[in-house]
């Protein structure tokens, strides 16, 4: 109505808006980054050089699969497997294809895990890296299949199998097919293990649900990055179930180390060296001359 038009006009702001303090603290994405833990503002380049670990407080930013491979493997040593494997939406789940498409565009990868072969300080290994920026790193048929194939290749070539986990768990949109990937990957590890295969898992933030309850926990060496959230059930569900507040360090890597669930918590800067150390010991034969 005409009257409405007038009232609107009278309410028109006659002053300039001042950004809230929160907005003021926000930094242009790309050039600068603000640590979510200590709030320090850093140059993104500097942060990247420090392997995405906060220069102030040591907070470990999540790494995507490409960043991880780049920082962990010898330069140019990685060759990828099964790059073009994609989900076929087996249950015809509503909106699933669209969500996958969005994430493919957003992340530049086809699924939530990247697998291949590479060198860790000269030691050859089959490496799998999950990526939490793709569907929360959730495991459906493709993730299960790629990991299983990678384990089978490690078995065939008698190479160590190293996996960086980062996942919210099984992917709901593929229902029971996702659940069964837990059995499939675990069975592949069992077979590989029986043949003497070496399994190293590095749990990164977050490793939960069906992924933590399958291959992530099945390493000969179960390692984790500082501060990583690792657990079976979600905090909210546990709090609702037991009707009490959980301590703030609950389900962190450090919490699990204290309770005997991990071999070691290793800062990102030392990962390459520590894992190369394990690989070196395993490669050394038993026949020595004293």
């Amino acid at each position: 109505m005409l009257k409405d038009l007038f009232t609107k006009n009278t309410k028109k702001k006659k002053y300039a808006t001042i950004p809230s303090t929160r907005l003021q603290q926000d930094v242009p994405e790309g050039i600068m980054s603000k640590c979510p833990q200590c709030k320090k503002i850093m140059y993104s380049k500097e942060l990247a050089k420090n392997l995405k670990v906060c220069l102030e407080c040591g907070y470990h930013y999540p790494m995507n699969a490409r960043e991880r491979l780049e920082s962990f493997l010898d330069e140019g040593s990685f060759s990828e497997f099964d790059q073009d494997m994609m989900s076929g939406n087996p249950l015809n789940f509503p909106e699933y294809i669209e969500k996958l498409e969005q994430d493919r565009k957003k992340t530049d990868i086809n699924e939530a895990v990247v697998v291949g072969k590479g060198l860790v300080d000269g030691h050859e290994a089959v490496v799998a890296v999950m990526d939490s920026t793709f569907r929360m790193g959730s495991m459906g048929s493709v993730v299960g299949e790629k990991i299983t194939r990678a384990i089978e290749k490690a078995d065939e070539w008698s190479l160590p199998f190293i996996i960086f986990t980062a996942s919210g768990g099984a992917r709901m949109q593929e229902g029971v097919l996702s659940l069964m990937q837990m059995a499939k990957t675990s069975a592949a590890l069992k077979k590989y293990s029986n043949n003497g295969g070496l399994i190293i898992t590095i749990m990164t933030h977050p490793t939960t649900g069906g992924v933590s309850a399958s291959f992530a926990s099945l390493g000969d060496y179960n390692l984790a990055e500082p501060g990583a959230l690792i657990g079976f059930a979600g905090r909210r569900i546990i709090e609702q179930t037991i009707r009490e507040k959980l301590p703030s360090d609950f389900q962190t890597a450090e919490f699990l180390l204290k309770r005997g669930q991990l071999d070691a918590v290793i800062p990102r800067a030392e990962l390459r060296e520590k894992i190369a150390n394990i690989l070196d010991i395993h490669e050394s034969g038993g026949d020595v001359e004293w």
Partner: protein
Amino acid sequence: MVGELEFEKPVLELKKKIAELKEFTAKTEVDLTEEIAKLEARLEKLERDIYENLKPWDRVQIARHPQRPTTLDYVPLLFTDFFECHGDRNFGDDEAIVGGIAKFHGLPVTIIGHQRGKDTKENIRRNFGMPHPEGYRKALRLMKQAEKFRRPIITFIDTKGAYPGKAAEERGQSEAIARNLFEMAGLRVPVICIVIGEGGSGGALALGVGNHLHMLENSTYSVISPEGAASILWRDAGKAKVAAEKMKITAPDLKELDIIDEIIPEVKGGAHKDTVLQSKAIEEVLRRSLKQLLPLSEEELIAQRYNKYRAIGRYTVAGEYIEIQS
């Protein structure tokens, strides 16, 4: 009637009406035989219509029925000489999982199953059939024992899921489940798994890596509860019914997806209506399974089990759809 389910109300109402008419006839000598016969014919049709066309959500209700038979209800009906074993030898005895040795038609077997309660008191003792790590570790101990003495293993799956609690996390719920998947894959004896109620996620799968996997007709097997899926996907737990349909969690769905071997038919209206009769149907399938698996060598058993799970998954490679049939 106690424990009646929403979808079967029309049947129960009609049954009540017929009973009333019969009583009336007996008391007053007014002849209503014809009326009763008509209603009985209608009842038969109605029962067929309802019980033979159960929707996924109806099956969820039956699978969750408080009176649905549990592992320990079936054990004495299927086996003789059951001896229950307790404890994981490390921490404690989790009564949400029961296990022990028994005979199946003279054949020594190991039995392991989730165990719910049917009333509050028993449910508290059994933690509503939701195991802690020590439950899974007890199960694994008994499986290894079965392997040592070359006994086939029969597991009954019936849980909403592994218990989401503080102590469970501290003691390694994830590791306990993962370890069972890993070790079950390598067992040198036949493993037969039967879903008798709810198959809730990893907590169910931890007893579920077998040579054969069967499901009772109205049981469910799912990566997450329909309520959980609905609240995560659509932020509305009320859409559980939709999620139950979309996620494909019923025995017929899983048969179609090639995940399970056999659907064990249920007594009309659900196993709780006649446990003895229901156990006969389970017995038949179990006998058939054992007959197939007993002649296999250790290597064949491991390979058969490996291939069964290895084949699960559907995806495309360079645009081509891959669907492996087991």
